[in-house]
């Protein structure tokens, strides 16, 4: 288990160096997107370049340009978009609850931020800009500057490692006993 301090945008080499179980602290640009932003991007394309991007599944609470609370939302709802989002160049998806590992193989990682910890996350994030503002506070595509955002766990790596799958399989074995 290694600790990494990375800066987004991320390179392919950056993410290939990560293994499931590693800890990551991320600085640099982080974009948020959740249900409505993903649906709109599918219909109309993405208003920003996601080459090397860290994409955060998050609907933040923001007042007067200040991030008040901004923990992760459940990634599972956005599973249907994973392939096309990674196809746009996203190197790290940040969220909670996990996503299937196959689309990440050879190109990207899934980072788990502790769920429910919105107040802690807010201290690591500043607003750089906002896109798709018409979707409302929670659903807009926010552009954040992250300062040592973490600790995040590499839950799905680019080599087929998947902590959620390991835990699920182990639970199934326990239930079969």
């Amino acid at each position, binding site marked *: 288990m290694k600790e990494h301090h990375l800066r987004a945008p991320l390179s392919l080499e950056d993410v290939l160096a990560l293994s499931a*179980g590693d800890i990551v602290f991320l600085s640099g640009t982080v974009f948020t997107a959740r249900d409505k932003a993903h649906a709109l991007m599918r219909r109309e394309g993405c208003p920003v370049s996601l080459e090397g991007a860290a994409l955060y599944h998050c609907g933040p609470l923001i007042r007067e340009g200040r991030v008040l609370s901004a923990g992760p939302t459940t990634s599972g709802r956005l599973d249907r978009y994973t392939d096309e989002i990674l196809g746009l160049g996203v190197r790290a998806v940040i969220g909670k*609850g996990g996503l299937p590992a196959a689309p990440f193989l050879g190109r990207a990682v899934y980072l788990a931020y*502790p769920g429910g*910890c*919105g107040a802690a996350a807010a201290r690591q994030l500043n607003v750089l800009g906002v896109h798709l503002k018409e979707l409302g506070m929670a659903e807009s595509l926010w552009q954040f500057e992250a300062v040592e955002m973490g600790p995040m*766990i590499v839950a799905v790596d680019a080599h087929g490692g998947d902590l959620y799958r390991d*835990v699920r399989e182990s639970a199934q074995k326990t239930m079969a006993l």
Partner: protein
Amino acid sequence: MTDREVQRGEVVQAAMSALQRAETSLPAWVLQRIEQAIEVESRPVARHHLQFMLDNVRLAEEGLIPLCQDTGLPIFHVRMGRELKLNFPLGEAVAEGVQAATRRIPLRPNAVHPLTRKNSGDNTGPGMPDMIIDYMDGCSLALTAFPKGAGSENMSFLGMLNPADDPLEFIVKSVAERAANACPPLFLGIGLGGTFDLAARLAKRALLNMNAAATGCAPGDSSGFSEDNEELALLQRINRLGIGPMGLGGDTTALGLKIERAYCHTASLPVAVNFQCWANRSATEVIR
């Protein structure tokens, strides 16, 4: 003549204060259960997650900011003294408190029309706030704010089982499949029996009653909550699954569990489980 007439403004204020405290802190008993879990948790990553959760609550309390960005839908457990007189619609006063809380705390606007998905902007609308009302002796009014996030509600489930099925096995198997998405370690409210809708309401009531017993802040609450033998056995069985905090592995999958029961039809076995995330938020204001 002991009837006490409650003023609308008192209810608006109580709803707002309860919601503010619920969003920016956690009840002491919830924090204690997390602290106890840290002591027995064997996985270092899981321990760090639990500690990070406690640190997050402290930051929220210090800054008076919502501990989770999902400030939830407004659910209120209302306990009303039978000698109380109300000369206004209670639901409207509580809704006004929610609107004021949304502006002041502030809260994220979460309430949308189910089809158009248009956001009301103030966390109220038809059916919201949701109020669960009980009656008690005396002339006080206890308002418990129980804001509920989508992560844990989305993973909650209901099964209309065959009476020949094993309901506990169904619960354990379903929790194993769903827990990771609901911000574990969880609090589990279980409704056993009743009808299709009664089972679901019992499950929500199990969470509310667990909380009421544990906090003991309204008249008639017992002081302290602990699982009975059956609940404890199920809780231990779920914790043996090893799902752990945030589904990343560990001994701590659930922190609390309560079962509420009702008689059901001889041909039915309804089972409902209402998930609550580790951030088991609530706060009570009592108007005396």
